[in-house]
Every structure is written in C-alpha cells, then in structure tokens.
C-alpha cells in the first residue's frame, strides 16, 4: 500500500488528531441565537394537512334528490387547506351515544377553501346522513378530517380531456372539478354526463348551468323524463360516442354501485386500459345477513381497554362507533389506511376488492376496521 498524501506521515497523523478538537470548536462556536421554532416547509405541511379540523355549519339549503347542501367554516384556523378538486372530507360527530363519521366529496372549489368556505352535498341515505339532512342546523359543530383521496385529476397520468359520469348524488365531486377548471387550477377540458331520474332530481342545476357558460361541457341524461335539450335514457356507449371519443379521454365515475356495474359493461367493448377509468370508491356498508351473530370485541387504545359488542353483519368500525370509541377513520372504503389497527386475536372477513392493506399488514396481523367484518370474538388495538 503506497498511499501517501503528504511526504511526511506525521502531518497526516496530526490532521487526524485534529478532527475531534476541530469539531468540538465548531460546535462551541455555533450561534447563540434562539433555535427556530417554525420552519416554512413544516408550516406548509400543517396548512395543507391539518389532520382533523374543527368546523361549524354556517348555512344549509335543501336540494333536489333528497339532498341537502351544507356550508361549513373552519374554527381552529382562518381557512381550509387548498386541496385537489375531487377529494373528500370525513365529517364526524356524536349522534346519541355513538361517535359517527362519513366521507363526503367536496362540492366547493379549492379556491373557496382559502376563503374559509367548504360545501358538501349530502343525500339522506343512512344513519348519519339522515341526521345531517334532517336535524343538523347552523351553529352545529363537527370534526372534519383534512381533504383526502385519490379521486382527482393527475396531470402526468390522465388525458387532457376528461369525461365525468355522475349518477344521482355522485354529482358532488364534479362540481368542484368543474369550478377548479374554470378558476384556472386544473388544466383539463371537462365533459360531464349527469344522469338523474328527471329534471326535478337534478341537484345544483343553477351552478352547473353557470359553469357550462364558462367552459364545462354538460349533458344531462334523464332516465324517466323526455325533454328538449336533455338526453333521455341511461348513459350508454352510444350516447357517449355522440359527444366524445372514448379512446382518447380519461373517465371519472361517481355514483351508485348499479351505475358502476352498468357502465363497466358499456365501456367493456372499448378495452380501455385500467388507467383510463377512475372510480370514486363507495363506503363499505352492512352485509345482508339472515341472522347475524353477535361477538365480543375487546379494544385497546393506548393503556385503556374496553369490551364491546360487534355484529357479524357490521364492520368493526361500526361497532367501535356505536360504542362511542373515538376510532380514527377517513375513507371507509378500505383504501386510506387511516384506521390501520393491530389484530391481537380473532377472525374477520374482508372482501378482496376492498382489501387495501399492504402485504406486510396481512403477514403481521393488521386490519382496516372500516372494511372488516368480525367472524369471531376479537381483540384489537387501535391507534
């Protein structure tokens, strides 16, 4: 080995011996100014991702189709975070002894969020939405999760031309997406097919017609009514082809399962790549069962343990909520991972297409309570 940096080896030795004194000196000579308590990038992270927010219902108005528009303002900060149009928030509240929550697509635009205004359109379709549509009143306070979800446009993935197919209350994310386009925050051209039973069931018609004046291509499709200027029937392949080229667009679908099933058949003939069709996932509800069994569910939260009842036909998350346990959750569709919990023992069932867990989660016994149905007595730890 002939390595020699300097002619005299003892110089290298001297330099080596100075490493520690040099560092000691540099540490001692650091500035004595107070250490920063805020960092810009972290402030932006907090602004964009506040986690859970405190909100108040400001106003409400009835909408066609058994729906209600709810307008919220944020209480714990001067504005909502900027978000990606198409995303949802989860609204959470105590109803009776339960702590309930449901995800709803945001109707208002990301720009409106910065003016401390966030709008939801809720259809009366269950326990919590029934409460929101019938009982909630201005001044009521709720907890709301930050805007989340992957049902939004991706510039580098999607076609510059998007075709949105809405059924019933599935119209909500598309209002935000159209507004965001008009406001210059999204680069796409948008065509919207809105399927409803009849004219009386079209929600947000005034807003949609105004957006159509500003660049939204809008086609109403009425199944039960014939009217001039409105398409009649269902959203079929034939109808789509009248307006768009299915091979050069990205589809965004939001509506009931029956609509997804129908459209899947209609779109099958085009053999589109998977990436060309995006669906907004629906909440995981109860299972149809003749005589569901009741199991014992032992729940650990940090160092506290409670024992509650869980029904075979309901998700573990529903059991937790019924018992008034504050269990983290957001999407209720198995995908966001926010409810990620440890299974200590017991069995559960999850539909394979709902199973959004990571591979190692399955290996090491973790579950997403929002899509897991108990199959025995269970013991879990929730974060």
């Amino acid at each position, binding site marked *: *080995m*002939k*390595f*020699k*940096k300097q002619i005299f*080896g003892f110089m*290298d030795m001297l*330099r*080596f011996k*100075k*490493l*520690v004194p040099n*560092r*000691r000196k540099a*540490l*001692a*000579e*650091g*500035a*004595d*100014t107070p*250490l*920063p*308590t805020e*960092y*810009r*990038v*972290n402030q*932006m*992270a907090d602004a*964009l*991702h506040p986690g859970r927010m405190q909100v108040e219902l400001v106003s409400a108005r009835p909408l066609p189709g058994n729906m209600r528009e709810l307008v919220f303002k944020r209480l714990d900060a001067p504005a909502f*975070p*900027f978000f990606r149009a198409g995303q949802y928030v989860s609204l959470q509240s105590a109803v009776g002894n339960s702590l309930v929550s449901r995800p709803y697509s945001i109707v208002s635009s*990301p*720009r409106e969020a*910065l003016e401390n205004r966030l709008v939801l359109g809720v259809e009366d379709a269950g326990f919590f939405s029934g409460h929101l549509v019938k009982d909630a009143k201005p001044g009521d306070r709720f907890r709301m999760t930050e805007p989340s979800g*992957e049902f939004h446009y*991706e*510039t*580098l*993935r999607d076609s510059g031309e998007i075709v949105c197919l809405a059924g019933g209350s599935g119209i909500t994310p598309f209002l935000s997406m159209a507004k965001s386009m008009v406001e210059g*925050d999204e680069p796409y051209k948008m065509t919207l097919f809105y399927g409803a039973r009849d004219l009386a069931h079209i929600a947000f018609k005034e807003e949609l017609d105004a957006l159509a004046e500003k660049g939204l291509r809008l086609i109403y499709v009425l199944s039960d009514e014939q009217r001039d200027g409105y398409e009649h029937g269902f959203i079929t392949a034939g109808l789509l082809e009248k307006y768009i080229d299915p091979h050069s667009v990205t589809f965004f679908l939001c509506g009931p399962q029956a609509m997804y099933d129908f459209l899947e058949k209609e779109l099958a003939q085009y053999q589109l*790549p*998977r*990436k060309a069709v995006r669906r907004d996932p629906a909440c995981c509800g109860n299972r149809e069962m003749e005589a569901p069994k009741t199991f014992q569910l032992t729940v650990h939260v*940090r*160092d506290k343990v409670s024992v509650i009842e869980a029904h075979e036909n309901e998700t573990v998350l529903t059991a937790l909520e019924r018992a008034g346990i504050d269990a*983290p959750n957001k999407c209720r569709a198995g995908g966001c*991972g926010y409810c*990620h919990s440890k299974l200590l023992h017991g069995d559960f069932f999850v539909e394979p297409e709902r199973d*959004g*867990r*990571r*591979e*190692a*989660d399955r*290996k*090491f016994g973790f579950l997403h309570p929002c899509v897991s149905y108990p199959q025995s007595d269970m013991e879990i730890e929730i*974060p």
Partner: protein
Amino acid sequence: MEKRRNKYDVVVIGAGNGGLTAAIRVLQGGFSCLLLEKHNLPGGFATSFVRGRFEFEASLHELNDFGSPQEPGDIRTLFRELGVENKIDWIRIPEAYHLITTDKQYDCEMPFGIDAYIEKMEQYVPGSRKSMTEFFELCNEVRDAQTYSNSVNGNTDAEYMKKNFPNFIKAGSYSVNEVLDALKMPKKAQDILNAYWCYLGVDCDRMSFLHYGSMVIRYITRDAWMPKMRSHEISLAMDERIRELGGDIWYNSQAEKILTDEQNRIRAVQLADGTEIETHHVIANCSPHLVFGKMLEKKSLTEQMIRATNARTFAGRGFTLFLGLNKSAQELGIKSHNYFIYDTADSVKQYDLMRRVETNHVQATVCLNNAYPECSPPGTCMMYFTTMFMSDDWGNISQTDYFKAKDRVAEDMIRVFERETGCKIRDSIEEICVASPTTYARYCGHPQGVIYGYETADWDSLMPRMMMMKEDAKLFPGLRFAGGYAMRSSGYSSAYVSGDLSGRQTVGDLKAEVK
C-alpha cells in the same frame, strides 16, 4: 423491571428505523420501554403505500452491508441479534448501479464484488486497475479499523491503531477527491466510482474519504438486499418484536414536551393531549433542532445546547416520484434496478445545481421489478425516482402552486429519465404519487422536509462524530439520539446502527444507576 401505567424506564420518541431498533435493545437489556409515534404506523420513512394494484416502497433503495445468510454483513448480524432477521423475506439486489451523466455521456453498469467491479472499471477506463485495487485495499483497512473501533466501543488504543491501520489514519482527515487524486486514479474512474455520493448527500470535495470508502466497500463486498414486502415488512417485524419483548407502542401519539425536575433531570414526556409519561431516559429518533428548539423545557436549555445545535447544517430535503406502469420493465426497455442520473459527473458542481428546485435534475431511480419481478402484477412494473434539494428553496412555493410545483419536478424527472435511457414511460403511467419535502415534513416532522439529517461535511463528518459519541451524549444526560440526526448520520443501515448504539448505551446508563 419497572412497568406500570404511564411509567417506563425509557421512552423512545419516534418509531423510525433508529427508534424501533433502540426500543428492542432497551427491552433486550431488561428494562421497560414505551415507544411513541406521531403517525399511525411504525417505520418513519421505512414504509409503503398502496395505490390501485401497486404497493409502493416509500424510500428504501437497497439495504447496505447486509450480506448473505452465510456471510452476513453488519446489518444482517444486527437484525439477527434483534431477533427480526427471520421474520422478513429477503431478496438480493442484482447489480450495484447504473450510472448515467448528461455532461460526459457516461453510461456505466457496475456490478457487485471487488474483482468484478475492478474488471468492469478497467473496461470503461483502461489503466484504472492499479488505482482501483489500491482503493479497495485502503477501504478494507478502513473497514477493519472501524470493526476494531466498534469492538472496543470507540475507546481505541492510539498505538494499536497506528501499528495496524496506518493508512486509515493517514487518509482519515482527507476528502474523497483528495484521496482518489493521491491514488492517481484516472478522472473517469473517479467519476464512475463516486456515483454513490448522492446516497450520502455531500459532494466529494467535502465528504470524508473514510465515510465514503466505508460505504462503498460495504456495498461492493457485501452487496445489497431488500425485504420482499417493501420496508414496511421490516418496520412491522420490529413492531412485532417489541410486543414480544413486552414493550408498548403508542401510535397517533406525538411527544410534545420533555419535562424536567428541579435538578434539570428528565422526569417525563408529555403528549399533545397533556398525558404525562414518567421516565428518566429518552431516546429521541428526531432532530436535536426539534428536541432543543421545541420539546425540552426552556429552564433546562443551556447555551451549549443552543450553540451545538445551531452549528450544524441540514442535509438534503427529499423529493420522490412514484410510478405504477401498465407495462413490464422488459416491454419498456428498463434493464437496470438502480440508476444514478446526474447532470454532471462533477459532484461539486452537481451539489450546487441541487440547491435550487429549477436547476436540479439529479435522480436516483429504482425499478423494483428488476430486483424482485413479482413486486407488481404481471405486465406491470413499479418505479421510484428520488432527488434532494440542498437548500430551503422548496419553502418558497405557495399553497396554491403546491400541486403544480410537484407536477413540474415530477415531469422533469420523467423527461430526464426518458432522454437519458431512451425508455418511454410517460404513456404507461397507471398510478402516480409524488412526495415533496412537505410530505416528509408532514409524516416524519423533520425540519424543512430534511431526509438526511445533518450534513456529514467538513468538520461534522462521520469520523469525529463517532469519536465524540460519549462527549455529545453529555450535552444532556438522560437523552440520546437515534436515526438520521444521530452519530452515524442518515441512511437505513446507519439509522439501525445508531438505534443499536443509543439503545445499548441507554441500557448501560440504567445499569450504572442501579449500581
């Protein structure tokens, strides 16, 4: 063993690689331990996430110094001692790296194994054999010296060092470039050899040769490995191990304050909701900037702590693009597992270009399928592209420009990859996700979205950090650090090692107290 509700021998703050390892070490030492994590998952950067039919690796490119079961490297040996090696299914990374530089048009695929590496280098740079051979001899001596140093817990005998590792000491205070010049290595061979520099995030004029040499020798001789189920598998294996050893882990539980008594000794850790956990020992898997700037009670903060923390420089801020592609790597022509693509082979110039978001086009890019074909469904493949910003330029971005800014950087990464490799990937994107410094700040809380801790440059290089381990811990008795900001600096292997060291040293502190 002291354990009752809200009272533990040790509280570990942060379940990143360092924190998880430290917690296991404390428990193995026979003491009680609570691990606090602000996120709902363990691992910190060591995690994965699902988009559509893809499960993306969040950060791990390859695990250094792992070795085979028969010839284990230091990290496999550590995992064995921790009791997690066999909880994880491992795959071997096939080749070292594929270096591409725009300025000099390098396109070099380098293998593992010293002989193969030297041979390949000789093909690219005829006449490099002698200096490359000497380089590896020197690296071997560096590694042996470090092994000796570790075996005596850093209390090295100067005479023994001089006698047995003379070149280690001679080269010890020089930078990578200084040593390679002294070895008379041809410039082109230096360029190709220095490709790993972005893994340490300091240019080769300022990076200590000892640091770089010890990393390269570990990669080339002990190759690199990866868990099949992404790094989330390691994190959950460690979570399980902690439970087996009787430790507690609280997720969604952010430690906010470290409380002290009248003598300024640690008395408790306070959570965001006010819960106090009694303890006298904390291992912080987060930055001294957060601990001394925000968490430690003001009355216990000394001028020395403030100066020592202010003296240090944040390393790179992370940015990663994740792509799920609807064609196989073969169909797309992506041949390598691990690409380093630089604007320039000159690491000093490159580092400078990385200061600004707009001028930075560096990427360390992985196509996981080329190491583990089954990581995504047949007919698809997965890629992740990582870069760093060497300043807070990202902080200039406004909230309303945030999503567009992420897209701009991501688009540039795709453009550069397509241009330099000729592989067209853009039309095959089925899933896409972008993590910016904001994302890293959000999930792990690191200041400015830093992913590499403090820069190991100049006076703060690895060697003096290691030699000052004991001295640094005296800054605040009862508190030790683990993870990327600790003595071993950043990177997976280093974070595990720092957790091992701080965990065992804390056990030593506790045992000394009992006496």
